[in-house]
């Protein structure tokens, strides 16, 4: 390891930083014997950069040379940027040394495509293989699958990695074709299908044979860019929903578009990345993964885009005042979960706690309910207070928005009162 590696590392990290996924959860690969590493099933972040994103895995590009010329990518062929290529050993050594110092939870390896997909993928798989077999490393490995690589390589990758991912990036095919002429949906979705069927096969196998090696134990994920094309939130979320359902994805990541190639006229001009929209998309993603919402309850033809001012759950509640107020002491878990300001943990606690006695506002507050939002949608063991039905949705919306504003203390200028002046 020499000091010029620093420059290589910087170039490679700069090239890899637009990949959002940094999850290190979902794998319980244990340290067998005296190796290094023990994946933690809930994932651990090890640092946070100034953009507020977590650093859990070391994200690297094996190389940032690429034969493709996708409009949204910083590493496209026609860009004049510093390029570098790591050797397999360099990446392996960096991962081990960083891991030993508790800097990282594992490795996220992707690569620009050089020569052909198989050649590229093979080098990536070698990194994972060396880590596992030579260094007895049991930490987390996330490999970006290269579309077009052979099934055999995908199979090998899955045996060494904890998670595989293929990025879709653009939510509709015509737009993808426009921005990345060399790519199409089937070239991305096919590897996803291969991975999915291998994961299912592997689960079956592990049920029969206890010691069968696990294949990509924490599943697969993908990423969608938001704001680079005119796709609506409905387009994006419908695609995400179908990926969760049909391809059994563990996660879909949304990435607010950052204009990396502003000279390309096919891309929109943005004053700043659509971070709020990205945030609302994640909130919706959570709603259908953990809160049992159907996608058309959140976005539909009447509301193709999410409300940027208020969160999607509140927005849903305001559109459906008929189902409120909900009686905290009687309603079932699924219904309580629909109250804005009550999350999964609070809802579970409420259901458990009310067996011992009726709950009032003070109890709810201590349990962790955000009363500022929830109070318009519930009744509990208290005197009646005005709910959404008396106040009307548009007023509740305004009240909550006012409540969310940071309260500025207006400075009143105090002066000595004058005894004789007439003011």
């Amino acid at each position, binding site marked *: *390891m020499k*000091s010029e*590696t*620093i420059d290589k*590392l*910087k*170039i490679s*990290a*700069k090239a*890899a*930083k*637009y990949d959002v996924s940094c999850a290190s959860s979902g794998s319980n690969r*244990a*340290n067998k*014997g*005296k*190796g*290094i*590493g*023990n994946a*933690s099933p809930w994932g*651990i*972040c*090890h*640092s*946070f*950069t*100034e*953009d*507020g*994103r*977590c*650093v859990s895995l*070391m*994200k690297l590009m094996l190389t940032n040379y690429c034969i493709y010329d996708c409009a949204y990518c910083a590493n496209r062929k026609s860009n004049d940027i510093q390029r570098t290529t790591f050797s397999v050993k360099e990446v392996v050594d*960096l991962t081990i*040394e*960083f891991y*030993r*110092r*508790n*800097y990282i939870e594992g490795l996220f390896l992707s690569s620009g495509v050089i020569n052909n997909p198989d050649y590229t993928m093979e080098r990536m798989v070698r990194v994972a293989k060396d880590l596992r077999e030579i260094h*007895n490393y049991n930490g987390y490995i996330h490999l970006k699958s290269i579309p077009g690589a052979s099934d055999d390589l995908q199979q090998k990758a899955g045996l060494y990695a904890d998670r595989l991912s293929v990025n879709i990036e653009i939510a509709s095919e015509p737009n993808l074709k426009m921005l990345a002429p060399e790519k199409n949906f089937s070239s991305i979705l096919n590897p996803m299908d291969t991975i999915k069927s291998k994961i299912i096969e592997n689960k079956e196998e592990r049920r029969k044979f206890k010691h069968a090696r696990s294949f990509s134990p924490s599943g697969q994920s993908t990423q969608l860019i938001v704001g680079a094309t005119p796709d609506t939130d409905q387009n994006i979320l419908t695609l995400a929903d179908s990926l969760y359902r049909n391809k059994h994805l563990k996660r879909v990541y949304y990435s*607010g578009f*950052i204009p990396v190639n502003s000279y390309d006229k096919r891309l929109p001009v943005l004053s*700043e*990345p659509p*971070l709020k929209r990205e945030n609302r998309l994640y909130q919706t993603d959570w709603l259908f993964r953990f809160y049992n919402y159907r996608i058309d309850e959140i976005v539909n033809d009447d509301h193709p885009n999410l409300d940027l001012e208020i969160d999607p759950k509140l927005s849903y509640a305001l559109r459906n005042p008929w189902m409120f107020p909900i009686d905290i002491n009687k309603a079932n878990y699924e219904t309580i979960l629909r109250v804005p300001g009550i999350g999964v943990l609070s809802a579970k*606690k*409420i259901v*458990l*706690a*009310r*067996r*011992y*006695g009726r*709950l009032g506002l003070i*109890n709810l507050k*201590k*349990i962790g309910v955000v009363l500022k939002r929830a109070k318009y949608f519930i009744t509990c063991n208290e005197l009646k207070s005005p709910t959404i039905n008396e106040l009307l949705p548009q007023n509740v919306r305004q009240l909550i928005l006012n409540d969310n504003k940071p309260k500025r203390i207006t400075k009143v200028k105090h002066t000595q009162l004058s005894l004789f002046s007439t003011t």
Partner: protein
Amino acid sequence: MNILIYDNTFEGLLTAIHDALDLNIKPSKILANKSFQDDLFATKYEIDADLDKFESLWNSVKKKTNEQNCQRIFKAFLSESIDIELLIYDYIKLILETDYNVETNFGDDSVIKINNIQKKVGRETQRVLMFVRFQKTIDDIYYASFDPKYNVIPLTVNHFRNRFADQKWVIFDTRRKYGYYYDLDSVQQITIGNKKVSMNSGKVNSESLHVSEKLFQKLWKGYYDAINISERKNIKVHMQFLPKRFWKFLPEKDFKNSLIKA
């Protein structure tokens, strides 16, 4: 006014609670002897840890509730917060006196308080796992210091032993002046701080560092700076997730202390 004084240990506290319940003394305060100040009007009971009494109380608590809930009590104890002893007394009394399982009665004050405190302790434990940084020394020991708000280092030992089974390591609590050393075989508690280490910043002095250590710190810092997307700058969230009190232990943050103002 009854004041129970115990010897700072969990066993001691449970012995004190055992005696209080046994003799039907209602304590108005339970204090560790290190934080005890004489009180003229109170009746004082100094109680020495007694393993038999501890076992008997702990077993009857275990019988009434479950292992996970006992773990919660222990975690709450590690918070070392003011009056935590009295809260544990109330909680144990509640568990023993109620016929049914009370651990999920979140409408009860002592249940929700114990839960919230142990959650904070859990979070601090997690922070140690996140932000501990090992420095490799010339004798091939990976050394790390930390200054956790609560006494959580004991809760992290298993994690590090499983993870770093093939390297010698030390993790040291600079606030409480004790730590653990793993010698590739077993973990021992150590109490003497090494003179080659700064007690304040936890840094190993440069003569004792492994030759490659500085390079890896530089590599890591270089990586950390490069992975940041400046267009998405969000200092508020950054500070929320990475509070300043941890910065002195992080090679990636060390030199920037003065640059960012929250």
